[in-house]
């Protein structure tokens, strides 16, 4: 018989959220470090090389100074995979994520970015009405909870684009829109980063899928071979645009292109682009039904 009460489990989720938010901001994942180091071996432009060397130095300085990689603590976005038998209701999970975000912001302290969308007045320690943002997935026959924290900076989030292509535009229309979007974004989203593309579904779901795509480990491929082929093709095409690191011109415009897809209506062909900056921060934890927490379980 378990001696853990629901309140303890809520505290465990809250602790995990507070830890994940700060950890994600300070310690970027190894796959990202590898991708940045690899980019530096390929870049031939002088300003591009200067940018990449500065980025690599910055990652090291963040580590030695125990500081944040980037000052933009972003908007806290969590993805939760909740097992059917996880003994804490999502309403309580949401409350725990919100309190955890606030605690991390106050205790570290982190810059608080949240404002009312009309008055622009600060609404609190990186929380507010409908903040943080949480995406949910429910898993049958399971008693665990996976939480991923993706602090999303505004420089890259401002470079989000949606087009309702028509079926006659085909895959070519999708490719053209992604290429135009990234050229138009130039240096603003802190390239080289991860281009997330969502295709199919509906307008809102395509953008959700694009956001899911940027949070994948770098270079992973969509299990659908048609989509994986498009990922490879777009990745190569995007790096031919010459936008380069921080938009100063060069060979490396993106570290990767990830695509998520959904089936759609016969008359729809939506394509959404969501950019993730080079400081592509993410951190994950697994919470067991008794409140035990394991960090860095990637999903």
């Amino acid at each position: 018989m378990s001696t853990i009460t629901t309140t303890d489990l809520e505290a465990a989720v809250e602790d995990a959220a507070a830890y994940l938010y700060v950890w994600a901001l300070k310690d970027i994942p190894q796959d990202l470090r590898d991708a940045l180091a690899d980019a530096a071996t390929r870049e031939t432009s002088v300003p591009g090389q200067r940018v990449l060397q500065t980025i690599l130095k910055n990652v090291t300085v963040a580590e030695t100074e125990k500081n944040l990689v980037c000052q933009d603590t972003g908007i806290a976005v969590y993805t939760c995979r909740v097992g059917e038998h996880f003994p804490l209701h999502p309403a309580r999970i949401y409350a725990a994520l919100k309190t955890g975000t606030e605690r991390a912001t106050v205790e570290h302290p982190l810059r608080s970015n949240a404002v009312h969308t009309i008055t622009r007045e600060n609404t609190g320690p990186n929380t507010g009405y409908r903040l943080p943002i949480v995406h949910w997935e429910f898993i049958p026959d399971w008693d665990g909870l996976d939480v991923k924290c993706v602090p999303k900076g505004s420089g890259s989030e401002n470079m989000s684009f949606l087009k309702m292509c028509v079926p006659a535009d085909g895959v070519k229309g999708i490719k053209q829109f992604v290429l135009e979007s990234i050229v138009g974004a130039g240096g603003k989203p802190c390239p080289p980063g991860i281009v997330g593309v969502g295709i199919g579904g509906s307008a809102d779901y395509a953008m959700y899928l694009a956001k899911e795509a940027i949070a994948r480990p770098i270079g992973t491929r969509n299990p659908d071979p048609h989509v994986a082929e498009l990922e490879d093709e777009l990745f190569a095409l995007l790096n031919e645009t010459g936008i380069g690191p921080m938009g100063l011109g060069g060979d490396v415009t993106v570290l990767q292109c990830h695509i998520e897809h959904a089936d759609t209506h016969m008359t729809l062909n939506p394509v959404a682009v969501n950019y993730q900056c080079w400081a592509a921060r993410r951190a994950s934890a697994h919470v067991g039904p008794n409140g035990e927490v394991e960090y860095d379980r990637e999903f």
Partner: protein
Amino acid sequence: MSSKRVNFPATEEAVRELRAGDEVLVNGHIIGIRDRTQIRIFDQGVEPPIDLQGAFLLHTAPGVRKLGPGKYEKVCIGTTTSARMVRFTEPLGRDFGVRAICGKGGLPDEAIEPMQRLGMVYFAIVGGAAALETTQIEEIEEVYWEELMPECLWKFRVKDFGPLTVGIDAHGNSLFHDVQERAKKKLEELNARL
């Protein structure tokens, strides 16, 4: 490439010596400014409480820890996207004598002509490299308009701040314009291949 060193506040002559593509390290004093700060100055007509003659403006909203009344220590200071604030470029130079604007991602082409005419430059910093940038800021010396936190008017003392790249010089050159022109031509070629 070796870096040029420039001290701020700077003269028009010092700024006109710089050319697009130059690598620069900055010393002296720089002023932190952002969307709401400039909306207050230009849209609400509030005179800035510090002299901006020859100033280097940094597009930032720093992460700080409050030590006491009007006194803050740095936590993490980095730089935001400049393009949002392009419409303030000309009045900053014309009305206040600002010599340099520093941010990330570049300024659109409408900044090129006023920068050339008024003798101003745009410095491109590496966005996101805030941990490094924080080590180059020696002290937060002054802060005004604390009610706009974190978008206050900040005065920082810096040492070897950079490396910065001259993105737009005072002679009508813009790296961002050049990169966009080349990329648009390339897009035509890529589209033909799709």
